[in-house]
């Protein structure tokens, strides 16, 4: 199954919980700043995302949308 995610970097708070649960290495830390002063994570489009939604399930700030092939 294939999928992808979209991260709203302005509401990301850099907790890295999404990174800790993605076992396909699709999310990476960044050094850029958002308006709140956090370093938002970014989607590392390595072709491996299967749209499992684990990242969005644990994201406290509802910063992740998940898309998946049906």
């Amino acid at each position, binding site marked *: 199954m294939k999928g992808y995610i979209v991260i709203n970097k302005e509401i990301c*708070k850099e907790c890295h919980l999404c990174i800790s649960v993605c076992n396909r290495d699709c999310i990476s830390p960044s050094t850029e700043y958002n308006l709140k002063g956090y370093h938002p994570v970014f989607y590392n489009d390595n072709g491996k995302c299967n749209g499992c939604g684990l990242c969005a399930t644990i994201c*406290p*700030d509802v910063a992740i949308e998940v*898309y998946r092939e049906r």
Partner: protein
Amino acid sequence: MKKIFSRPKSLKDAPFHYCPGCGHSIAHRLICEVIDELDIRGIAIGVPPAGCAVLAYNYLDIDMIESPHGRGPAMATGIKRMLPDRVVFSYQGDGDLAAIGIAESFHAANRGENITVIFINNAVYGMTGGQLAPTTTMGQRTTTSPLGRTRELEGYPVQVCELLSGLRGTTYIERCAVNTPANIMKTRRAIKKAFEYQMDNKGFTLVEILSPCPTNWKMSSVEACKWISDVMTKEFPLGVMKDIPSAQEKKAVAAHD
């Protein structure tokens, strides 16, 4: 491709004021997901507490009325008795429910009020700076137990689910956690079950949620989630503590067989 996850409709488009990695945020989202799924946005009434979740009404797009510290179950009782066709829940922290509000919680449960309590156990007074709460674990360091909780000075952690399960008035009590995706999905199912029981007039329901407070635990968010698995669940085991309707159903099925 199809969108399979986005913000629930009942959750306002407002960024949370909570710290990074805070379990309140996850709990709020789950409540909204269940409200959407059960299509009860127009009849749900929430009672937020004093505590970090004091501003919950800024996020949940339903009717909400703030309660004085610890008095959520009393307020919810009044609302539910006047408006029995609404789905009424209080949302309370451990300081709120198990310290200042223990009397209201205990007696609403004992009366078997047809309300739901969402109980956020983060083992500290989060909002006021991480003081010891009734649910602080043995040995846990807080700003008011700097050497760690001891039996001699502070006594044992209060196990709210076990305590209230012993009351004949309670219907459904489950302890969950929001520290892993699997536990988060279980928490969602528990909230849904509690609201459904309330809608079927089954009586008092409570869902305890072990919830990370990385700020006051002085941990990273990832460490805080792990601490729930490694330490907190030892003091507060997860699972269904009481489920009268399901037990009755099983009994009826067994009798039929």
